[in-house]
């Protein structure tokens, strides 16, 4: 069983700095040597409404945020009414008593104090930070240091406001004791891990059109462009992004695109272009509930079959989904490198829950691999689509005296267009010969993850594995979680040993799509499905109860 966790819930209106405050609080825990997991629940609006963030701390690795909070900080009135029921036994709730007073909880006159300390209207989140620090008995000096590092504007006003709020509050709780000083832990969102992984492997250019929950990948890379040199281009549409990316590859750059389901649908033709022109392309698909516009800021796994069947026409692709933040980094490096090794489009499939949640991790830099392609050596005349045994034709990039012709039509070795029967067959066969080599190459990397060694078997993929692993920390060791990381090609041999008894399949879909996929591919019998399709991640404790019930029944 897991040691104590401590969870903080912060609620407020959009624009009040809830998410930023959660990041600062999570980073504070990190400084104290605690592991943390942060999850943001926000709506598709800019000001007002209701946003909240959860940050769970633990002395050991924590894979998901808990939903019952030991400390609730309400920056506005709505947060109080919405979250009173989320208070854990023995927990504390703080609210803004300038707006209203309540019987239960501790009122702090946040709005009134803000007026006293700030010249211009500001957001109350600094008060939230002071509540957190004072309530948990953290040193005043520590708080002031954190404020200086984390909030660059209005430093003096922030310090005086926070100090006064701090002075009004008595220490009433304690964070769990750290086991070690956890060096090297940093807070990363899944999208940051993906971006850094792709960059580590060699990414030069990223093309996208904003669509939550993939937008934060564009934002992150754009914010890093000065430091890392990577070009992050916000194109006029997903069609533009994907075609520009193929162009960038032709120009010699390592390129990636990213979107959610709707935008990905618009990229399909270019995905097929990458297929026939053999352009290595990393595509990040971060799912939200669909269909169409769906629910922008929540999580889902509805795009599994869409990802597997992306594009029209026949061609090889790789689809894989990270089950941890660390894997998001290493998998992004693997996928960019496989794309370049085989000159194919690849999909990194993930969900809002991984893309936009943040966890304290160490970047697995040692697992990174480099993206390199087979490059033509200049002795013989060049043919872009030279017929080879492996199906892989050497690439060449400009400037070059050789003629390098890429083509969206079926083509001859030279890259000139053809519609002749024999030439068509030869080129399709060439591309198809890559298939077995792709499967072998994927075997270099972890293709499945197995957690635990119990006999009660659970299957899941993607960020659902985060929720389940945290749930399992609250159960005994009679469970085992099997996670396929590579979904196409699916490592059937590796999975078959786990199909000897009916399993519990857990996914964020209204229909058991992943379970059906497993049945089809590896003959897995399902003993029960746990389906969740309200866009929300599981509370690990609720999920733990469901899992136990599924096997006890």
């Amino acid at each position, binding site marked *: 069983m897991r040691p104590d966790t401590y969870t903080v819930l912060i609620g407020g209106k959009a624009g009040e700095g809830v998410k930023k405050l959660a990041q600062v609080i999570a980073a504070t825990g990190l400084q104290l040597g605690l592991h943390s997991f942060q999850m943001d629940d926000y709506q598709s609006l800019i000001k007002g409404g209701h946003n909240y963030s959860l940050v769970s701390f633990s002395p050991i690795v924590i894979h998901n945020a808990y939903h019952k909070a030991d400390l609730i900080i309400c920056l506005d009135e709505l947060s109080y009414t919405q979250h009173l029921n989320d208070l854990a036994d023995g927990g504390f709730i703080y609210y803004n008593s300038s707006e209203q007073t309540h019987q239960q909880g501790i009122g702090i006159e946040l709005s009134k104090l803000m007026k006293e300390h700030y010249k211009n209207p500001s957001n109350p989140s600094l008060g939230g930070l002071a509540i957190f620090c004072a309530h948990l008995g953290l040193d005043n000096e520590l708080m002031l240091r954190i404020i200086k590092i984390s909030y660059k504007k209005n430093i003096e006003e922030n310090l005086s406001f926070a100090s006064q709020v701090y002075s009004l509050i008595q220490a009433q709780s304690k964070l769990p004791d750290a086991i070690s000083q956890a060096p*090297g832990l*940093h807070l990363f969102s899944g999208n940051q891990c993906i971006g*850094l992984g792709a*960059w*580590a*492997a*060699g990414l*030069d*250019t990223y*093309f996208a059109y904003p669509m939550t929950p993939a937008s934060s990948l564009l934002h992150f890379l*754009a914010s890093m*462009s*000065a430091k890392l*040199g*990577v*070009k*992050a*281009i916000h*194109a*006029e*549409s997903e*069609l*533009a992004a994907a*075609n*520009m*990316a*193929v*162009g*960038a*590859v*032709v*120009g*010699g*750059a*390592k*390129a990636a695109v990213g979107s959610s389901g709707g935008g990905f649908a618009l990229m399909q*033709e*270019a995905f097929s*272009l990458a297929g026939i*022109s053999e352009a290595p392309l990393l595509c990040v698909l971060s799912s939200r509930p669909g269909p169409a516009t769906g629910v922008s800021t929540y999580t889902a796994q509805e795009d599994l079959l869409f990802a597997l069947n992306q594009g029209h026409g026949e061609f090889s692709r790789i689809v894989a989904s990270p089950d941890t933040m660390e894997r998001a980094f290493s998998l992004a490096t693997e996928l960019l490198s496989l794309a370049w090794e085989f000159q194919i489009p690849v999909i990194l499939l993930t969900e809002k829950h991984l893309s936009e949640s943040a966890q304290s991790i160490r*970047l697995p*830099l040692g697992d*990174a691999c*480099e993206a390199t392609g087979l490059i033509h050596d200049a002795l013989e005349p060049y043919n872009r689509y030279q017929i080879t045994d492996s199906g892989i034709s050497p690439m060449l*990039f*400009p*400037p*070059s*005296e*050789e*003629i*390098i*012709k*890429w*083509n*969206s*039509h079926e083509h001859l070795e030279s*890259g*000139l*267009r053809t519609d002749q029967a024999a030439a068509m067959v030869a080129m399709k066969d060439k591309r198809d010969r890559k298939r077995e080599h792709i499967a072998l190459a994927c075997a270099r990397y972890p293709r499945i993850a197995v957690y635990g060694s119990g006999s009660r078997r659970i299957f899941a993929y993607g960020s659902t594995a985060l929720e389940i692993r945290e749930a399992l920390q609250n159960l005994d060791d009679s469970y085992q979680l099997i996670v396929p990381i590579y979904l196409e090609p699916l490592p059937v041999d590796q999975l078959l040993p786990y199909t000897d008894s009916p399993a519990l399949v857990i996914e964020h879909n209204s229909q058991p799509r992943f379970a059906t996929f497993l049945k089809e591919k590896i003959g897995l019998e399902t003993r029960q499905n746990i389906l969740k399709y309200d866009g929300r991640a599981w509370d690990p404790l609720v999920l733990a109860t469901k899992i136990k019930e599924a096997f006890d029944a």
Partner: protein
Amino acid sequence: MRNLDTPKANTWCPACGNFGILNAVKAGFKQLFDQGLDPAKLMITCGIGCHGKIFDYLNISGIYGLHGRAVATASGIKLANPELTVVSFGGDGDSLGEGLEHTLFAAKRNLDMTLILHNNGNYGLTTGQFSPLSPIGFRGLSTPQGSAEQPFDAIPLLLAAGASFVARSYSANPKHLAEILVKAVMHRGFSFIEVLQPCVSYNNTYQYYNSRIKMLDQIPSDVYEAMRLAKDKDHSYLGIYQAEKRDLFEDLSSGFANPVKESPAFRERIETLRTMYK
């Protein structure tokens, strides 16, 4: 000197205006090579349509991309390695229909590249349907009673979008087109050339154009004058409508100036991350 011919058999209809464009483009590129353009750094892209076949007839590197996306693909090449000279070929269906957004945005961005629009006033390859530039009443298989839409005017459209070099030429005047191409490629910024191109099979405009073509005396004094001349009822004016110096996207956008040439080695990347996240 690079030989610009390929072994590919030409399948344009005899007397198609595309032949004039092909000849002019070859002559223009040769002049550019003489003036120092390195053929190794020249890249072309094209869309899908009769115009796109030019890709197969030019011994030049590049990509024969998707219908409507030639300009987006070209933009990607240029962003990856701004040292390259990128010329894109589009049809009126391609660049002002299916891919209108990319054409307008490329003009807006002012990436340093050239778009040659083969304006034949219809969709040639798909058997003569009306295009965004066909006049109202144009009869084709999809509009047997005549199209019910007003056409775009390519030049005013591109001027409004902010193209920094805008010109018009005629496929039956390859010498003029070659000269314009040279100027367009030399221009630093997004260059647009509308080439009036008769399609002998579906929209034979030779006589029409021959009777109304005139040369612009000079670059019009301002954009309104340019638009007025471009839309003139009686004459189709050939020449340069706009040639303006504007900031280049590749100079203003952040990140490496040349992502391909400056791309850090793998080890360097890992070391950077190691120091950033100690």
